[in-house]
């Protein structure tokens, strides 16, 4: 059959986000895929070199639109490591609760995108509604809905308002109560199973070779999670499971994401119970305009909703970073793994596979 070149995205209806793939197709089958990012490149890493350490927060959180909080977390962790700042006990718990909220919100957004693309509009609307409930909580806590700029080196910006945790528990119960409905209409729906089972298989061996992290690896059975490997903040204080699946296809990846979300909800309850009732939530830092951080370099990593997230940060003793380089999970998934996973699949499954790999385009471009 004749080979054709097909430009898929960023305006294509089946594409998620500002991302494009050049496909070589033979009939409906993909022979070769060539990922083509760059539609959202804003050069944040270069811009960060021109601003003071504290001024960088509004930039950093815009790297990942769906879950900005882990970007703030990784940047604060790196600055803390360079400047030698400790986080107080209550601050650690506050941070962990906040980041788990962000994880749940991000997974709900992912469920929206996935369901919406496959035509499960009811489920998509539920997921968006439930994410909105969490955004209300974020708004009450930080004053903003999407980009919060709540974390800072040394802790968080302010303590929980009165009655916040009770409201949060109520909201999470409301979301958790809907999980059986999600299962019936989406996750265990035979229509959805037919679309996702056996599609876009990434085996263990391929995943290791191509540097996969997060759910791509968890769907092959490995409990690779930085929260367990190198516990930061309050994650060593609570018990939690890392949900895994065995098959490595799109369906097992999505189920691993769902279980991760449920696990996060349970973890928030445990964190709220264990949290110290009183105490400071941040350590004081110097005047941000005169804050010179000692020479050195830091490499820190945390577990974002998409997998291992790293930051390499260099300081040359001035009040601005010398070099910052983010190692985002979507970078590997969207460029190396996606190209491999698409080979031999049909055109109608491109968005399906990309969503199951949990790729977010702004994270690739930065």
């Amino acid at each position, binding site marked *: 059959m004749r080979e054709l070149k097909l430009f898929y995205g960023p305006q294509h209806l089946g594409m998620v986000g500002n991302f494009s793939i050049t496909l070589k197709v033979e009939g409906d089958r993909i022979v070769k895929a060539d990922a083509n*990012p*760059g539609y959202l*490149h804003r*050069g944040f*890493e*270069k811009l960060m070199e*021109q601003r003071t350490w504290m001024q960088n927060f509004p930039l950093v959180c815009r790297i990942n639109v769906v879950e900005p909080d882990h970007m703030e977390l990784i940047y604060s962790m790196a600055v803390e*490591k360079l400047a030698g700042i400790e986080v107080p006990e209550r601050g650690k718990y506050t941070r962990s609760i906040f980041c788990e909220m962000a994880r749940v919100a991000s997974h709900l957004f992912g469920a929206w995108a996935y369901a919406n693309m496959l035509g499960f509009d009811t489920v998509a609307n539920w997921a968006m509604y439930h994410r909105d409930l969490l955004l209300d909580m974020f708004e009450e806590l930080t004053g903003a809905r999407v980009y919060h700029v709540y974390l800072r080196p040394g802790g968080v910006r302010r303590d929980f308002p009165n009655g916040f945790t009770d409201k949060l528990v109520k909201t999470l119960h409301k979301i958790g109560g809907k999980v059986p409905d999600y299962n019936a209409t989406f996750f265990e729906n035979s229509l959805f199973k037919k679309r996702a089972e056996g599609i876009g298989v990434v085996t263990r061996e391929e995943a*290791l*070779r*191509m*540097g996969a992290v997060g759910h791509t*690896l968890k769907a092959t*059975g*490995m*409990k*690779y999670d930085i929260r*367990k*490997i*190198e516990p930061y903040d309050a994650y060593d204080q609570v018990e939690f499971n890392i949900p*895994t699946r065995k098959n490595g296809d799109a369906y097992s990846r999505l189920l691993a994401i769902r279980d991760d979300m449920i696990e996060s909800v349970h973890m928030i309850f445990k964190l709220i119970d264990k949290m110290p009732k009183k105490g400071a939530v941040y350590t004081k830092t110097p005047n941000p305009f005169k804050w010179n951080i000692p020479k050195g370099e830091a*490499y820190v*990593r945390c577990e974002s909703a998409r997998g*291992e997230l*790293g930051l*390499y940060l*260099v300081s040359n003793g001035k009040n601005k970073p*010398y*070099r910052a*380089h983010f*190692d985002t999970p979507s*970078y*590997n998934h969207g*460029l*190396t793994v996606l190209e491999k996973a698409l080979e031999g699949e049909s055109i109608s499954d491109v968005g399906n596979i990309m969503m199951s790999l949990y790729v977010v385009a702004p994270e690739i*471009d930065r």
Partner: protein
Amino acid sequence: MNELKKKFESIFNNITVNVVEDNRIVVNIKKDEVLTFLSYLKNLGYEHLSLVSCVDWINKSEFELIYILSSYMAKDEEYQEKEKTKIIVKTRIPRKEARFITVINVFENAEPYERELHEMFGIYFEGHPRLTPLLLERDYEIPPFRKDFDMQNYVDNTYGKIPSIKERKKEQNERT
């Protein structure tokens, strides 16, 4: 950690190994030995390449290439000390006509990282199968992530100069 340090120093010459407190090992190595050292580390079990990065030390007119390695889990359910270790391999290359060897043969996922470094810093990686542009759309005289790239000048030339507040007020007064 210190065992690893001894091991590295006994096998490789011209190498400085520093053990930093938070499970980091920083290795400075000559540029000819990087490929053999990386494949040696991969055989030791450090098979996860997290990041390939570059820092432009313009005062010394050198680029510093950085490879950050860690290890996947040996057993699916058990967490061991080894996974905490992060090995940072550093090497320096001259800034003028910067060239280096690709490490794709050792780590397959280095491909997009090297493509990005080629685009942003202008480092040519020998043996790389596609050094085509990854993120940018324009051609630049100086690759944009180098320290001597003048951002203000670039913005003025590309998008037109934005007048300062003083100049704008002056213009307004002249009009009225």
